[in-house]
């Protein structure tokens, strides 16, 4: 197995229920691409004004928001609380996080569809207990720099105080991220089984296939 690790500044988002509308508002979902969403991540919190996909006006930043403050602006490990990514199925939320340059999201819990979309795009999600999350959020907010070292091969996170936290992650998720697998190709290896299943269903539930 190839090794994969991420090292970088924490971006603390100190709240529960960060929803996908907050991560990327609807006006940017009109794009037909998978890229270019980075400037719009957390758009309504990040800017005092609104924009559209085709406007190229200079934006007015909200200087209070975490992504507009040092050292968080250059962070690549987002840390938040429970039910992160709740709401709509928009994969644009994952693309926006990745386009911004964030490699890892750590939270107390994640919404189901968001988890799945992250898995599909190789965005690493790590679940930790609330006590640890609070510790990371508090420390990162009171430090000039708060760097985590996430070692995916060993399921470990090294904190700046040299404390090591172990996390658990499914084998398939890990494989997916480390080997950058093409899911469709993997599924198509079972083409014959899919065809066999379909042929059985054509006999038992023919109306689903040919409703003459």
């Amino acid at each position, binding site marked *: 197995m190839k090794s994969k690790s991420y090292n970088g500044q924490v971006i603390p988002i100190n709240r529960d229920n960060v929803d996908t509308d907050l991560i990327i508002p609807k006006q940017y979902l009109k794009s037909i691409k998978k890229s270019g969403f980075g400037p719009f991540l957390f758009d309504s919190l990040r800017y005092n004004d609104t924009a559209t996909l085709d406007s190229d006006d200079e934006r007015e930043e909200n200087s209070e928001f975490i992504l507009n403050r040092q050292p968080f602006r250059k962070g690549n490990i987002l840390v938040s609380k429970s039910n992160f990514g709740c709401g709509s199925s928009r994969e644009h939320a994952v693309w926006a996080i990745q386009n911004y340059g964030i490699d890892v999201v750590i939270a107390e*819990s994640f919404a189901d569809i968001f988890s799945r979309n992250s898995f599909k795009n190789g965005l690493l999600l790590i679940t930790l207990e609330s006590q640890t999350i609070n510790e990371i959020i508090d420390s990162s907010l009171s430090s000039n720099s708060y760097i985590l070292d996430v070692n995916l091969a060993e399921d470990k996170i090294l904190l700046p105080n040299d404390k090591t936290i172990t996390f658990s992650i499914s084998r398939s998720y890990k494989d997916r991220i480390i080997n950058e697998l093409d899911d469709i190709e993997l*599924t198509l290896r079972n083409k014959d089984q899919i065809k066999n299943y379909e042929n059985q269903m054509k006999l038992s539930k023919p109306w689903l296939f040919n409703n003459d």
Partner: protein
Amino acid sequence: MKQTLYDKIWNDHCILDNDDHSSLIYIDRHLIHEVTSPQAFDGLDIKKRDIWNKKSIMATTDHNVPTINRDQGITDPVSKIQIEALRENCKKHNIELYDLDNLKQGIVHVIGPELGMTQPGMTIVCGDSHTSTHGALASLSFGIGTSDVEHVLATQCLNLTKEKNFNIEVNGVLHPYITSKDLILYIIGSIGTSGGTGYTIEYTGETISDLSIESRMTICNMTIEAGAKSGLMAFDEKTHDYLKDREFLPSSKHYDNALKYWETLISDSGVTFDRKEQFNANDIQPQVTWGTSPEMVTSVDECIPSSDLINNEEEYIDTLAYMGLEPKTEIKSIDLDKIFIGSCTNSRIEDLRQAAEVVEGEKVSSKIKQAIIVPGSGLVKAQAEREGLDKIFMKAGFEWRDPGCSMCLGMNDDFLEPYERCASTSNRNFQGRQGDKGRTHLVSPGMAAVAAIKGHFYNVKDFMNEK
């Protein structure tokens, strides 16, 4: 071994079990729309992959379409590119598209059941989280992201890990003018927006059996707001009656066999669920959300709570600041700017009838800047017009629009201006959902109609008794 309804549909679609606890699941029906499909078609093109089963797919334009002046075409150039992309993709791959010029066009979760494309026992996916709606017809339905849309286009399958079984049993009788919208908001207020995460929820009990299929759809629709991707309800006589004569149902040659299969789509009696909750319908009053998460909800006769039981103090304070409200404010004292009746949650004919019953002979308050009614589909609109509902609404001062997702998410021109407050029959009150800095209160169609007339919230039950 005894099985739940979820177990049965799962097992029936399981092609093989993988060694990582996931299974390869066959997908019977794939619904697509303009917003979450273009990148998926692009992915197919790049890898030169074909679509596995075109006949399983139905496409419509809904999220991003104008609901007014359609004869002028789509004026927003960015929206136009997205809709044209869907048109081109459907044409290229020979996929059935219900476009703006088609009477049957509408919100994907309204037209699927309406046309009979949603059938019991099916697995149904769509790149939209409210796909859970279709579970009201005993189908296993859930929202997926764009990568999974591409995966289903190319393979007709998804590798999925089975969820746990959660039974929500509701008994008792809903009071007059209290609807399934109030019931599901009440349930979300109780179990929270992550209460269903990791589960498939099956709703049972006499209250559910008594509900119409359209009312059941409202509950399954908002199941995603409780964190569960799928909501399910057993097949029964009402499901059967609803399905009769729908366009895409099994033909007469197959119908009896299909019906025989559908009749098996109930959980075995005495089966054990991983989790169970019970609710009493008699307890439920009209619900109004006061915050920026659907779990922040209370009865119309109550006040905004003085602290939040689910979320932390900081979030409670931020929420009220965003909403422009104070703790302990009486819900009925909250004035409104806009009224939206529509969305995949509440835009079907029964929803419009409920609203019309309230509105008939009344006028929209002068305090209200705009009150719009957006039917869920062209067929719903036509039916409402046959019943004269459009005239009732327009006479009262409502705008009568063409079908689409509209102000539920404000991707088109229907949205809230900053700080505007809306009584909305949609499903999400997230920050900025209906427009940047907009303030959303989720309610039933009857409650939205009363709010339009009064200019502030009011108990629909009292209003109808006084009328």
